[in-house]
């Protein structure tokens, strides 16, 4: 399947940018999007969290198909769970665990989200903790 066919199959308002194609979706549609990507043969690339000053997390899941970047975005209030896609793309495991480490985002749909870069005793959300509390 081509990237254009995946876009067509998924529908929605895809935006073409210089770096690829971007589609905003509500959180509950992320897993379906991941399923469509896998069915189309797309490779999972990365999960990015980008918080704004209001405490809202912009989250984007990125896939690649033959050099075309397909990015699906959603927004999430801090503390709200994000959908896990580990059962669809096992390669997302480390990305989700790192997201938990950095931004304390809980993931729904996986048994546990153990720390990846942090140690067991470290509190998640290191990118959010106050500057003064840092070593």
């Amino acid at each position, binding site marked *: 399947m081509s990237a254009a066919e995946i876009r067509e199959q998924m529908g929605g308002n895809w935006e073409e940018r210089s770096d690829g194609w971007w589609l905003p979706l509500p959180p509950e549609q992320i897993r379906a999007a991941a399923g469509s990507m896998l069915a189309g043969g*797309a490779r999972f690339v990365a999960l990015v969290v980008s918080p704004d000053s209001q405490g809202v997390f912009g989250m984007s899941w990125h896939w690649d198909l033959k050099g075309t970047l397909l990015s699906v975005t959603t927004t999430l209030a801090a503390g709200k769970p994000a959908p896990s896609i580990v059962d669809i793309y096992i390669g*997302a495991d480390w990305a989700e665990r790192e997201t938990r480490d950095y931004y304390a985002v809980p993931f729904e749909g996986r048994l546990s989200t153990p720390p990846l*870069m942090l140690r067991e005793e470290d509190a998640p959300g290191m990118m959010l903790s106050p500057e003064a509390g840092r070593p």
Partner: protein
Amino acid sequence: MSYRIPIGPYHLALEEPYKIELDCQGERVTGATLKVGFNFRGIEWLAERKNITKAIALMERVCGICSNVHSMTFCMALEQIGGVEVPPRAQYVRVVMAELERLHSHLLWAGIAAELIGFQTLFMQLFHLRECVMDALESISGNRVNYSMNRIGGVNRDIDHPEAVRKAVSKVRDAVSRTLIPLFTTDQTVAARCRGVGKFSRAEAIAYGAVGPVARASGLDTDMRRDHPYLAYNALDFAVPTRPEGDVLARIVVRALEILESCRMIDQALKRIPAGPLHAGDIYTVPPGEAVARIEGPRGEVFYYVRSDGSDTPTRVKVRTPSFANIPTVTAMVRGSDLADVPLIQGALDPCYSCTDR
């Protein structure tokens, strides 16, 4: 009898810390758990607290081997946000640097692989060749590891001694064609040690998100230089070696063939490099915006997401290194393998724990 073997975080074979716990049934590996983070430096956090100029230098510290591609990809993301045009000559200089770095990385890896297989002499020959490449990198940048070549909108230095680069490339090409490729493709000992070991299918490569030579050795025909051309790669003629077998031997062969392709690319780039400026002027800020930049590093696709609010400090920098994508694949590769093959399987990934942890 089933038992668990914890290995690491300090290894005899690997120079970087990480931990693997192997579940075994007799000599057979039934499962593996990985633990990383021993090199965690919080580089993304640091990058969001430094101005762009300092952050470029910081990103070069993500990896000690492919340092250039990190500062380059970071700059490319910023250039996209700012709509900055990189002059053609600078694009060619970046290509030469990136391909020399690939030679450096692949030769280093091939040397380590030779040692793991038991070829000490080949290890020494390959490290000698790697020195020639590092000399070429030094002739351009003045540095052997962190080259400080990239800036927003171009490069800091020109290729003043192209003949030194050509000489090194010619030496690498001759030695790799005469020794490395015949050895890795026809030698019975290498084949016996590596064929069928650490199998990893194309479907697994997609599900795990494997990149670079690891993906290509499992039949996943992907290469950002060809599929999403950047810099001057569009103007160069090169092949993307792939193998369908998905074993250690396939990973070795793909990298060996890639060395020759990089030599070809450097030769072409040095012939075709146009005259002109090296950069687009002094740029210390970019307008508000976000961008993803992806390039093909020695170990595979490097992914950078950068967001700017228009100030001189990026508000978000996300780095997904190739090893971050590739290292989890070892859990699939070792499953069902002999315990004695685990070091070779890990080595064939060309893992970099420093850039995984960042």
